């Protein structure tokens, strides 16, 4: 039942990223956790939720004071075999974004699929 709706998303760890870049270290810490888990062989699913979708904006830059952003880390995900990237469809709409315009290939997920994702991963970390 639930597995059918999840459209083949299979993973051990679901990392939910709910913060945008630059404003806090939440996004960076979530990505670090995902990379470490992947380095230890876990299958990681990333879900960008709420303002977290802005992490995938193209053409991000370093901060006004030269702070490093998170987009270089995102570009490393593929090297760690983290290729299941999901974005909350409602959040995309709120920010006026489309999944096709993001810096990495990500699939938009509808609200009803979110609970399935949380239920089908054995571990969920929220950042």
């Amino acid at each position, binding site marked *: 039942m639930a597995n059918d709706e999840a459209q083949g998303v299979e993973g051990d760890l679901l990392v939910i990223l*709910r913060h945008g870049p630059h*404003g*806090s270290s939440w996004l960076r810490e979530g990505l670090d956790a995902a990379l470490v888990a992947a380095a230890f062989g876990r299958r990681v699913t990333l879900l960008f939720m709420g*303002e977290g979708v802005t992490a995938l904006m193209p*053409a*991000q830059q370093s901060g006004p004071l030269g702070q490093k952003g998170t987009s270089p880390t995102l570009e490393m995900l593929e090297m760690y075999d983290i290729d299941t990237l999901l974005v909350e469809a409602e959040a995309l709409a*709120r*920010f006026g974004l489309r999944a096709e315009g993001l810096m990495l290939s990500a699939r938009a997920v509808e609200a009803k699929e979110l609970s399935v994702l949380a239920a089908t991963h054995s571990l969920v970390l929220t950042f």
Partner: protein
Amino acid sequence: MLLHVLNRSPATSEVYRQALAAMGPDDRLLLIEDGVQGAVGTLVARFAGLEGRLYAQEEDLVARGLAPLCAPSVVRVDVEGFVLLTEEAQRTVSWF
């Protein structure tokens, strides 16, 4: 005239409502840091009625890749513009 400064995203935090509630009819609102998310998409509707008094920090928009999405109703200011706004205001009030 007071300058209210908001550094939280209206997508995540309800503090923008407190800022709006505390604003007088001539007060200005400047969005900085994650607050600049309020200048894009449907989020800018949360600040309806502030046209001409709603500002966003240019550097923060650019760092986040959000500058191309900034609504035309929002006045974009760089750091010098931020300083000018504080000069023109009697006081500043921070919302975080």
